[in-house]
């Protein structure tokens, strides 16, 4: 359960950005979570709800956008979305691959209330 530690980082980033904008409240938070990010979205939501109490995000909602694992084969140039984690090109069998997406753990955007 390292999700709580990640949520602590999230709040640090959020509150810094909100202060820059002189915001009073954070009302909505959108995260991008890759399929190979190693976190469980449901646990992130639980951790978020625990952490937000008594903060400027206390009424804030969390939306998680799951990002698929997408790889590019450097040999046959095929782009594939992987549901498993098998890093072998489904078209030509090459293992010379590049991960295009799926490892993200990003704060994408947030909605602020400003005076």
């Amino acid at each position, binding site marked *: 359960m390292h999700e709580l530690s990640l949520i602590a*980082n999230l709040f640090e*980033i959020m509150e810094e950005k909100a202060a820059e904008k002189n915001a*009073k409240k954070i009302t909505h938070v959108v995260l991008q979570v890759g399929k190979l990010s190693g976190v469980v979205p449901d646990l992130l939501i639980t951790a978020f709800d625990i952490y937000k109490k008594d903060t400027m995000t206390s009424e804030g909602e969390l939306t998680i956008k799951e990002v698929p694992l997408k790889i590019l084969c450097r040999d046959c140039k095929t782009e594939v979305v992987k549901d498993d984690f098998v*890093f072998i090109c489904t078209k030509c069998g090459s293992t010379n691959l590049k991960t295009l997406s799926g490892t993200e*753990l990003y704060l994408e*955007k947030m909605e602020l*209330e400003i005076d």
Partner: protein
Amino acid sequence: MGKDEKMKTKEVMVLEDLLGSNKKIAAEIRQKLTDKGILTINLLSSPGAGKTTLLESLSEVLAPEYKMAVIEGDIETERDADRIRAKGIPAWQIITGGACHLEAKMIGKLLPEIPADLDFLFIENVGNLVCPASFDLGENIRCVLLSTPEGDDKPKKYPKAFTTSDCLVISKTDLVSVLPFNIERAKKEALEINPALITFTTSAQTGAGIKELAEYFSESFQKIRRTNA
């Protein structure tokens, strides 16, 4: 209500990595240690896969020739650090007090205590095949252990630990004759999710494979020294 009407809502794009601060600290640690010519290895596995025992065995091969030290990560107790110290190897214990993984800032705090003339710094992570995989500690090599009693189906069940590692050590191979563990199947699974993995099979009981693993670390260490020269 009057007050609320004055409020306006604003959407702000951020696109910031939640692991950004950890990655930044880890990069600084890697730079500092590599500049000193120290090879850092992060050992990762589920509890009881044999990380401390592997370090004890490795110390017998490496310590006569090289200077090594160990950072131990555990939720509680100094036990692992004591075992390493009993081998004459300097060890620092990080007690996380419940946290299921080490983070770069924990290593960063210890950095001033790490002797500059070391050759190898091993970091034994908290026993857990999930959470430690997300945190770069500033290592040069990430090494994941899979012990034979755990079963050969683990790589795909815990993909992050295997996709982010540089080398895989299949440990406790002396038990393979009494277990339904197929070494080739385990290697194949692991290589399917990470074709770049360098694989080793070891038994701390018989000593099998320890020398080969020590050689791999020594070669990586020599590379760092050559690059620095």
